[in-house]
């Protein structure tokens, strides 16, 4: 896992939480994680393929997961039901999707989300180790985002920013 690729994930986490959940996120120092055991009780997982392969795993303690999923869905979750899992999966989807656009020069595809619920669960895939773990805090709970990613094709760098290019493109179509 190349630490240069950590910033897109941190920006994405901040962006997703402030835009969709109205929550500010602060970070502790990222660290390398070498065991497969999940950090917490609930994990939202997105697979990465293409020029980079691996996964993004968002791992939450149960109380934080219930509150954060509720903040996205605009409801109060009391149990970890299907709608709760859907909200957790969608948060992971947005974090991975938003980060991949800033993985400069890499064409990466993301999978649909999987959500695993249960204490002491493991996310085992030897190719994903070591994972870079980013400890995240919000006013309603903390969680960890783990990124296990291996670059399989060299980045093709383009100077124009993705946001600028996309905005120009969409505007030209709408004119």
């Amino acid at each position: 896992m190349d630490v240069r690729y950590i910033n897109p994930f941190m920006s994405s986490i901040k962006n997703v939480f402030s835009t969709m959940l109205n929550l500010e996120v602060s970070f502790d120092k990222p660290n390398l994680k070498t065991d497969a055991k999940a950090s917490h009780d609930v994990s939202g997982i997105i697979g990465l393929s293409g020029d980079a392969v691996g996964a993004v795993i968002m791992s939450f303690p149960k109380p934080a997961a219930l509150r954060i999923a509720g903040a996205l869905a605009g409801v109060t979750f009391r149990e970890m039901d299907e709608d709760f899992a859907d909200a957790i999966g969608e948060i992971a989807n947005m974090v991975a999707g938003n980060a991949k656009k800033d993985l400069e020069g890499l064409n990466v595809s993301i999978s649909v989300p999987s959500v695993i619920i249960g204490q002491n669960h493991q996310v085992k895939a030897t190719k994903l180790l070591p994972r870079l773990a980013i400890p995240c805090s919000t006013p309603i709970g903390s969680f960890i985002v783990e990124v296990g990613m291996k670059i399989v094709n060299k980045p093709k760098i383009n100077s124009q920013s993705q946001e600028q290019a996309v905005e120009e493109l969409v505007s030209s179509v709408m004119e």
Partner: protein
Amino acid sequence: MKIMLVDDSRTIRNIEKNVLSQLGYTDILEAEDGIEALNQIASGMPDLFLVDWNMPNMDGLTLVKKIREQDKNVPIIMVTTEAEKTRVVEAIKAGVNNYVVKPFTTETLGGKIKQTLEKMGVPA
């Protein structure tokens, strides 16, 4: 005005429904993937689509192409985490009329819906 939301996430469909309801649109159809959407439109084409890209069974890009085989004009807005220029080009070539990147604010989504309907001359 009948609007179809195609997204495998119920959470996102609910957020979209809230935005549409604030704009006064309450006649909403929902589908979890492209196949379910195609099955539903067999009995009538909606007036607007909001379509996610990454979905199981049939993705949004394939769905857009299949809708366009049946109807060249119905407005389609892609609402997706796919934000790279190459993906947007692919979606526009397939026939989408507007593009909203997740995460979005309710104002952004509402604005793009209004903009698309005005542009396409669809009566509110």
